[in-house]
């Protein structure tokens, strides 16, 4: 199978599904001739033209609100928010409108809308080009929140998202766009939304993670292996709704659980994962559910020493795993 990086896998997913389904359209800032600020829509404007790959005005509420309308009409609409940091002007359209349309119409209407947004830090993006806002949206029933950790999943999950009849937020870690590479089939395939994935098996410590952090976890797991501890790594993949079964069964098996994420921990996805484990695996736990994440500061600063201070890297994760192993 050919090896591709993350952004290529995403671009292919978009392109192939657009070729298959003429109702798919893309809308966002700079998605047209420029091909997006990260190149995710490169060449698509040339292939599909102005209406199917349309540069939006600089307005996120417009991007999503127009998407909701077009999706109600019958389009399969892929909205791009240039940076997840700038999704907030669209929060009302996402949470009040897209998430509630099916419910409030008692099933009469639905919104097949995908909202793609690059997120995450470690790229010298400073406060407003580094944030991880998944917690805000993973709290909202009616939304699906998907975060791929590798190119194969990215393509397959994105195609599933486009075919899904409900709004899907599709968050892509921008540091992974070019750094993450893997085998990706040339043809169309899907990876199911709503299912976590055990990407490394082990019986001593269960690591729950998603996005880039899965890759950090795999590296840290290698370090632990060298010290004689086997970590199981669960890639959560869909943050809403959660695959409780996979999470709980891995946690029960290992008896020790570390939840790792990039964003700050307070009232976050890590909180929910820890709470589920605490509630459902009490009798199997050999140690407290531990969490590691960003500090409780408003966002990641620009200066390299400050940015580095923020990020959970392999070293910090390994240290935390050792603490848990030693418990």
């Amino acid at each position, binding site marked *: 199978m050919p090896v591709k990086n993350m952004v290529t896998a995403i671009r292919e997913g978009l392109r192939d599904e657009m070729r298959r389904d003429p109702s798919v*359209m893309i809308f966002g800032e700079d998605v047209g001739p420029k091909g997006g600020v990260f190149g995710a829509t490169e060449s698509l404007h040339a292939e599909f033209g102005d*209406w*199917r790959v*349309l540069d*939006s*005005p600089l*307005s996120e*509420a*417009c991007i*999503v*609100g*127009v*998407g*909701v*309308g*077009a*999706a*109600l*009409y*019958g*389009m399969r*609409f892929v909205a791009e928010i240039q940076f997840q940091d700038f999704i907030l*002007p669209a929060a*009302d*359209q996402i949470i*009040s*409108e897209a998430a*509630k*349309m*099916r*419910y*409030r*119409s*008692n*099933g*009469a*209407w*639905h919104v097949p809308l995908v909202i793609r947004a690059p997120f995450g830090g470690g790229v010298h993006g400073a406060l407003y080009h580094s944030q991880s806002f998944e917690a805000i949206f993973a709290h909202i*029933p*009616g939304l*699906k929140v998907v975060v791929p950790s590798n190119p194969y999943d990215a393509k397959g999950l994105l195609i599933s998202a486009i075919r*899904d*009849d*409900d709004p899907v937020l599709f968050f892509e870690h921008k540091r992974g766009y070019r750094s993450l590479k893997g085998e990706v089939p040339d043809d169309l395939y899907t990876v199911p939304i*709503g299912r976590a994935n055990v990407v490394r098996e082990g019986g001593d410590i269960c690591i729950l993670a998603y996005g880039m952090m899965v890759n950090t976890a795999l590296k840290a797991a290698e370090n632990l292996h060298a010290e004689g501890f086997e970590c199981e790594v669960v890639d959560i993949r869909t943050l809403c*709704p959660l695959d409780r079964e996979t999470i709980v069964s891995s946690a029960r098996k290992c008896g020790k659980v570390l939840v790792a994420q990039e964003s700050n921990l307070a009232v976050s996805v890590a909180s929910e994962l820890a709470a589920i484990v605490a509630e459902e695996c009490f009798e199997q736990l050999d140690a407290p559910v531990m969490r590691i994440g960003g500090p409780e500061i408003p966002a990641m600063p620009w200066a390299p020493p400050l940015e580095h201070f923020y990020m959970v890297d392999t070293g910090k994760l390994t240290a935390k795993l050792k603490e848990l192993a030693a418990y």
Partner: protein
Amino acid sequence: MTAAKADQSRQAGLDPDILRTMYRHMVRSRVLDERMWVINRQGRASFWISGMGHETVQVALGMNLRSGHDWVAPYYRDLALTLVLGMTPRDQLLAILAKAGDPNSGARQMPAHFSSREHNIISTGSSVATQLLHAAGIGLAIKVSGTDQVCATCVGEGSTSEGSFHEAVNFSATHKLPVVFLVENNGYAISVPLDKQMPTPDVADRAKGYGIPGVIVDGGDLAGCFTACRDAVDRARRGEGPTIIEAKVQRLTSHSSDDDEKRYRSADDIAATRNQDCLTRCRAFLEETGVLKPGEADEIRGEMVRELDIAMEEAEAAPSPAPESALLHVYGDV
């Protein structure tokens, strides 16, 4: 020129049948609306928000749309509009009585949060002005699909202060989308008067900034409302882009059943509003011009009340939703 004369001059070219039908629609909405208040005051529903005083322009808009072909993104005052498009008094009674069969939302939303898949009336939530962007999106989808459909959307003047108003008009005008924006300007956003809301008296002024037509109509002028809506819908259908229609209407009630306008409006102001009741004005005009024969208006009202009574009986007999049904329709596949 008196207002009545102006009305007559505009009437030129309008079939009396159209005018008579418009009047019937208005009465139908009005008697239903009055009943809603009764239901609320009887303690049988915790909430009602009225369209009384806004009916003329809504009826004018609805009659210029092709129901089930064109699309509509309404707001909570658009009771008359939904009826013209084919929803029934029974549908809206099922909603206010919180019955499972309510086609708007299965009694999940408050009454006056309209929706009908059958009639291409998209579901509206409560967050004002969000529907304007949905209309723009539907307009985009229509344009991409190449049909001759039109999407109409309505909003109060207060809600045009939201950013979404600008964003929706800007985008629709940029791409000449087939959208009609109807602003129902009743001078108040709950208690906030126009002069605390915006710097000029006319929302239609904004159209200039987008290079599109901005038309002001008297919301009690049957013929004026009809022709303004017709022109805007035709223009959209011809692919020439959006129009802002601003109808100067009267809010004949407090903002909603939870509000008491006496707290913030003078008795004179309220009385002046009541004297501008669009239904009374339209009746006078139609009788004056002979479109309605003497006594015909009362007959129409009687007919509408009888229809309503039957709908009311049916709605009262309908079942409430089962508690656990609250869990349904979160996702399509879960």
